[in-house]
């Protein structure tokens, strides 16, 4: 039986190492093959002048509309500040039990919070967010286990507290 395929599609500039590292983490966690693709879209269409942020709902719909026949799940990767109308910002979002999601690197950089930049933190946070949103596409809801990657995180330090992996219950839930 062939492994399910996950597509990570990047919009805007991303370092190659970061994308490959992230793809490896996803591959290890979901035991599937991962494709990295580049998306070419004019993001200014998704920019909201009044909030000076990018509309997460519209970007999610955009990713969902992109069809990759060999892919089970698709996750759009961004490097811009995302929002949804009701919240001041989001790190990412996904269709619960659907086939697509989005995640942004933008708010994971320490420098945004007045601290010294740290690439390892940046990478770890991004990988956790990507796995978290993919978990939602597999139908997982927020987990109450303190270290599970599916635990809800509303600020970066919160993300640092959890592991890169799903807990055993969440694994069992999706059969991996």
């Amino acid at each position: 039986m062939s492994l399910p395929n996950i597509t990570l599609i990047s919009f805007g500039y991303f370092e190659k190492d970061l994308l490959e590292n992230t793809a490896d983490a996803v591959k290890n966690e979901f035991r599937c093959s991962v494709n990295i693709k580049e998306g070419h879209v004019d993001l200014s269409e998704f920019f909201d002048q009044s909030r000076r942020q990018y509309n997460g709902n519209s970007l999610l719909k955009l990713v969902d509309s992109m069809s990759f026949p060999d892919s089970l799940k698709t996750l759009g990767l961004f490097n811009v500040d995302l929002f949804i109308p009701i919240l001041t910002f989001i790190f990412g979002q996904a269709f619960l039990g659907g086939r697509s999601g989005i995640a942004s690197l933008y708010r994971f950089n320490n420098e945004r919070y007045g601290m010294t930049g740290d690439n390892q933190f940046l990478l770890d946070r991004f990988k956790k967010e990507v796995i978290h949103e993919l978990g939602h596409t597999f139908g997982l809801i927020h987990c109450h286990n303190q270290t599970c990657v599916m635990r809800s995180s509303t600020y970066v330090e919160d993300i640092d507290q959890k592991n890169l992996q799903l807990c055993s219950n969440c694994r069992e839930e999706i059969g991996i």
Partner: protein
Amino acid sequence: MARKISILIVDDEESVRDSLYNWFLEDGFRVECAENARKALTILESDQFDIILADIKMPGMDGLEMLRRIKSLKSDAIVIVMTAFATVDTAVKALKDGAYDYVTKPFDPDDLTHLIRNATKQISLTDENETLKKKVVSLENVEDLIGESDAMKDMLREVESVAQTNSSVIITGESGTGKELVARAIHANSPRKFFPFVSVHCGALTESLLESELFGHEKGAFTGAMYNRKGRFEMADSGSIFLDEIATISTKMQVELLRVLESKTFMRVGGNKEISSDFRVICATNKDLKSMVENGNFREDLYYRLNVVNIQIPPLRDRKEDIPLLVGYFIKKYCISMNKPLATIDPTAMKRLQEFNFPGNIRELENMIERAIVVGDGKKISLKDLPLEKTIINSSAESLDDFEKAFVLQILNKYSWNISRTAKALKVDRVTLYHKIKKYDLKPSDQ
């Protein structure tokens, strides 16, 4: 396991509804959406939601009007109002109308998480509170009134129906029938059950002490009044006050009591501030209040004010079929409290108890069983453990022959049917004793 919390989102903007819907779905809540207040109210008619998150500004009925309507239907509903245009006035208005919280759009993800977490905590505390209240009430009811007889069933039906009302009740019954238990049962089954049940034994207090006990006193009101003290009427606010032995109160107190019952206001002794209290009055007496009124010993107006409903507790001798049940209940109660293994009762002893008239009613039976458990062998209660011998003859004999039969049998049993010792105790000769045994057909098994 905790139940799944449900959230209803009410907002005219589709993007807001969708965003919140997805957010809460990922958190594992049951979520539904309505695009306006009318639709939300229609949904709420057929479905219940723990949390309602509603926008204030909506076309047609606004969020505040919807909040008022929801609160009038379900006062404990948790409604959180949202608005894009924050003003202190609107926030205050929403909170005054019963909103749980007020948030300004857009909100920080962390604020939203905290808001919902707090509301969820509130819901689980309310659930837990309800569960505990149910447990407390059921325990109180189990403890309360024992009996399967028709007389008892009739009385319990009366208790049940009167409990739901706010009417004053007089409980009448002989001493020891359990008047306070009936009063407690009325309170425990009434809408006032979660508020105090305050009991006052009027007969045990002098007039001045009763006045201070009922109305409270201010510091310095009399010698020894070193502090302000709340009275029993004040303590019974929202609950019930039980006035036992109401027939013993003085004429002056009868006037005072009537005034308080009519106005539900009073002043503490030595005070000048009027205090109001919402209480229900339950009284008890073993006297015939009606004839006391006729004799001029009890005020007629107070009698009618108190005697809206009269519950009569039957004496134990009129419901002897309940005796085995009561005996079993008291054996269990005292064996547990004395940390002894559960004792049984000899059938002969039980038979004798059922023949006894119990002038002291259930209290007498209870004391008898307690004593039997203390003095007995701890395994089986037998006739010798029960203090029935001295009184049994008086209570059940209806003729001289009955009296003699019972008395001779009692002494025979006392001396284990030793004829010589029994005859000696009865101060008769053996032949006379044999004659009596034959006459009354007495046998050693007749205990």
